[in-house]
């Protein structure tokens, strides 16, 4: 039993080491890609596949988040006579936490799964070896454009999710529950700061890179056969999901510290 535990530990450390090296190679390849204009077409193609085609699913996710929040919280606020403040609650929750996290989770499922399946299939059919045999770095050709596309477009998709969450919450609150329109927006405007929106969008950069790096790594290291590719896709989604939640927690702590440090200076400005 101790032997098994040791083997699992060593295996886990080996995997972390390989993943760390893959991330380092991907990061350097991504910087080089930024400096070579002929690679922009590859990034553009991936932006279309990863970003543009994800817009509908991310917008639907955002809308339902806002609508559900309105339905769940209206009762409690109305009982205290605070229903006009529903907008603050919904919009803060959407732009700061739920919009970014749920949009990223949807992307991990839609984009991450597709990336792992595509690269995994290329791996088992020797297409990645073919790229290497032609003197091209597969990380630079395959991984860097995908990481750049996710890095650039995840924040934009989060903005879409936020917007639809705000609209969804507004429709349920004002149209269904009959909250005063002007009061709803004025409370929302006074309660949600630019800082809240900024940290929500900034999380998108981290989530995007994490989803792309994990999905590409799983694709590059997947085992032979249909079962190997399927397993890699599942592992990629689970790892991305956990990574998004862990990153969200870490970023919440960091942004809170930054806010606490610099907020007093705001009064001086």
């Amino acid at each position: 039993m101790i032997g098994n535990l040791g083997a699992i530990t060593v295996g886990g450390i080996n995997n972390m080491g390989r993943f760390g090296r893959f991330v380092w190679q991907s990061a350097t390849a991504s910087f080089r890609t930024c400096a070579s204009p002929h690679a922009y077409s590859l990034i553009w193609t991936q932006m279309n596949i990863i970003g543009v085609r994800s817009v509908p699913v991310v917008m639907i996710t955002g809308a339902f988040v806002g609508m559900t929040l309105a339905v769940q919280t209206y009762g409690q606020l109305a009982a205290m006579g605070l229903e006009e403040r529903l907008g603050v609650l919904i919009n803060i929750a959407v732009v700061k936490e739920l919009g970014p996290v749920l949009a990223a989770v949807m992307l991990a499922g839609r984009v991450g799964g597709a990336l792992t399946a595509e690269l995994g299939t290329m791996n088992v059919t020797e297409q990645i070896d073919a790229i290497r045999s032609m003197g091209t770095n597969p990380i630079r050709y395959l991984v860097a454009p995908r990481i750049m596309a996710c890095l650039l477009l995840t924040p934009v998709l989060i903005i879409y999710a936020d917007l639809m969450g705000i609209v969804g919450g507004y429709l349920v609150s004002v149209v269904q529950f009959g909250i005063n329109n002007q009061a709803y927006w004025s409370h929302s405007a006074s309660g949600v700061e630019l800082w809240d929106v900024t940290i929500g969008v900034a999380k998108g950069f981290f989530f995007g890179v994490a989803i792309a790096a994990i999905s590409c790594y799983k694709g590059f290291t997947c085992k032979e056969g249909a079962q190997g590719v399927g397993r890699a896709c599942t592992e990629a989604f689970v790892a991305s999901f956990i990574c998004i939640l862990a990153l969200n927690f870490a970023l919440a702590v960091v942004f809170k510290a930054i806010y606490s440090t610099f907020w007093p200076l705001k009064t001086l400005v």
Partner: protein
Amino acid sequence: MNHDKKKDVPPAGGGDGVIVLENICKRFGPHQVLDNISLAIEKGKTTVVIGPSGCGKTVLVKHLIVLLRPNSGQVYFKNRRIDNLSENELNRVRTQYGFLFQGGALFDSLSVTENIIFPIKQHCKITDWNEVEELVKAKLAMVGLDGYQNQFPANLSGGQRKRVALARAIAMNPEVVLYDEPTTGLDPIRSDVINELVLKLQRELGVTSVVVTHDMTSAYKVADRIIMLHKGKIIADGDADHIRNHPHPIVQQFIHGQVDEDDLAVLRMSGKISQAQFLPRDFE
């Protein structure tokens, strides 16, 4: 792995080998795939590597281009040690190779033309696209597929895919072309077309070829030299006549495609097992 970058002279006995393997050992987990292999691939000649499935032929050919790195031993290309180079340095060396993979390994998302110009786009600055189109046309004509420029790999048959992959492998006019089971899965006529292409490339472009196969008809047709691998070791090395008359029983068994006594014993055993009666399940 030995990282002695200064040692750039191939060992004695490498002769005029364009690629030299010296004492190559490769292990995957507990399984020893290549066991102390030393080999010099002669310039301008076609070397065929034969052996039963799973004996390490593909692993051997991947070491020639350092797609796999040995656990021990050295690989030399044109008198320069390459197994200890970084991937970036290797990429420059690999432009002098062409590699035809067993399944073709064409990129599904790219058309035939885009597949063929892939290495050119990666390594050359294209100023005249008409010239590139002419080159694609010439390479496809060479493999008998002119007119298929705009097709995608999914629309091609297995033989056509292999021929397009061959056109891609020779797009940069490489000095060495490695073929991994080029005739596997093809009908005899298509197999012969591939054999003729291998010979044509050697005649017209003077390329050095290494062909991995277990198709003896193909091996006899294209080989200047045949090497047989068995359990990770070279057990026979010579021209086609030498291999035909080789005294080693495993070589004779392989080239004549005969089962051995052990296999027959297993078949007899499985015959007894297959006589066991299984009662059908009652479905209501």
